[in-house]
């Protein structure tokens, strides 16, 4: 079965999730990965969206972080202050998903500005929940398509901390959570080195060369001593994912206009 690089990324992320995880889910690739996990090997995984929806089981993927579908299928929905105080800061979330416009070798992320903060070349949306998701969740997975624009030697702005300057930087700041433990791209899976915390390629997706990864990374990327080949998506994984995406497309098309179908294909925050 053929599959896209994006499908490989989503499937690789889904596999890393377990039944016991309580996930703080962002829209787009994280949402697809979390729901794919829920519909395959992790039926009891708990999905939480920052809009306040706890233990939600959407039948179709949401387009925004606060779609009605999320609330209608949730165990319950709490206020946003409660979400950030009792649930995120309260240490109840085992796993957070983040992405960004830029990432560096220590998995710090920038979603704030390209260029100087006071006179930005590009003003990005900003941090949203990321600064505290990055430090309060038990661990962090990052999903990003890999390329030189995003995987940079030096961030213009640290929106959310990964491993900071590396080593024990998190501990030195009094942060007790693990931080980014996996970066899942459309080319490979990286994990921080146990000591230096520098991102290291541990698994390469089928058909991807080391050169391609090097070319698409803005710093001299390191490879682990033993690098695995990511198992290709199984037929079942692809079938469930495509079915979910097709169901999503049909549901949103059913609601209204052609524009809505276009929006469904784009995905929403």
């Amino acid at each position, binding site marked *: 079965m053929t599959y896209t690089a994006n499908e490989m990324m989503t499937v690789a992320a889904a596999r890393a999730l377990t039944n016991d995880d309580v996930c703080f889910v962002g*829209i787009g690739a994280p949402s697809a990965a979390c729901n794919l996990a829920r519909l395959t090997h992790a039926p009891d995984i708990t999905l939480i969206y*920052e*809009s*306040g*929806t706890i233990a939600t089981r959407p039948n179709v993927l949401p*387009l*925004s*972080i*606060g*779609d*009605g579908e*999320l*609330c209608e299928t949730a165990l319950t*929905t709490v*206020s*946003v*202050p409660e*979400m*950030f*105080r009792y649930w995120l*800061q309260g240490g109840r979330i085992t796993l957070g998903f983040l992405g960004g416009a830029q990432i560096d070798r220590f998995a*710090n992320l920038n979603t*704030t500005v390209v260029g100087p*903060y006071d006179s*930005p*070349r*590009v*003003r*990005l*949306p*900003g*941090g*949203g*929940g*990321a*600064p*505290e998701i990055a*430090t*309060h969740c038990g661990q962090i997975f990052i999903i990003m398509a890999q390329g030189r624009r995003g995987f940079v030697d030096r961030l213009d702005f*640290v*929106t*959310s*901390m990964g491993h*900071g300057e590396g080593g024990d930087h*998190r501990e030195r*700041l*009094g*942060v007790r959570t693990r931080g980014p433990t996996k970066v899942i791209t459309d080319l490979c899976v990286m994990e921080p080195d146990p000591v230096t915390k520098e991102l290291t390629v541990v698994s390469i997706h089928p058909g991807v060369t080391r050169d391609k990864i090097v070319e698409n990374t803005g710093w001299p990327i390191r490879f682990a001593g033993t690098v695995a080949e990511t198992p290709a998506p199984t037929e079942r994984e692809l079938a469930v994912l495509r079915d979910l995406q097709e169901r999503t497309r049909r549901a949103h098309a059913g*609601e209204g206009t*052609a*524009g*809505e*179908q*276009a*929006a*469904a294909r*784009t*995905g*929403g*925050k």
Partner: protein
Amino acid sequence: MARVLPLAAAIGETVRDGDTVAMEGFTHLIPHAAGHEIIRQGRRHLTLVRMTPDLIYDQLIGMGCADRLVFSWGGNPGVGSLHRLRDAVENGWPNRLAIEEHSHAAMANAYEAGAANLPFAVFRGYKGADLPKVNPGIRSVTCPYTGEVLATVPAIRPDVTVIHALRADRAGNVLLEGIVGVQKEAVLAARRAVVTVEEIVDDFGPRSPNAVILPAWTVTAIAVVPGGAHPSYAHGYYKRDNAFYQAWDGIARERDTFLAWMKEHVLAKGPDAFAVHARKAA
């Protein structure tokens, strides 16, 4: 005590030039009709506060209503940039826009502190992040028991908060349900509060004993604007118009198409233009 007024009067009596205005709604229940009314009334020099500046703030900023924006995530959800916000920040059009930027956690805590009549909020936040370097409002206190240093932000206390809710009863009490966001906190933190609603009912009837209700004496004015959250949505009334969010990217990308759209759909219209969105779902 809440008075039921036409939207123009509700906004006219509560929102003044130079005010700090919070228009809240977390994806759900965003008060678009009220935003349009503020634009029509030509309010100027506003400080706009909102966790997720959405199309509604893109419109207010593009029409020159705002001097300052306090926010934590400024994008068109799932689509991309807010072009009018970017044009103001990057190029100063139609005027320079000062920004005060926070994280979601900081703003949620700041609204909560405002509702609780505290001057500031304490939270564990911003560790290892750059925002405290560019926002002097982010400070710290030391725990008097453990010595731990925690982040602080000033409480948000808007001059006026504007929200859209599902319905009010005849006494002027207001009910929200579903994704309730920070609206209760934003209303209780504010000096004045304006609420647009889908409808006014005789009585809320059977409901959860713990329903999210704002008593009439916490609200300044209520305006009935069916469909008033569009292109956002109202739980149980109508769905989010994702197509419009998508279309906005093209409308707002250029100044002239933006201005033409605002002229046709906002300046030349009134609150009753929103009713079609409520009816479509019914």
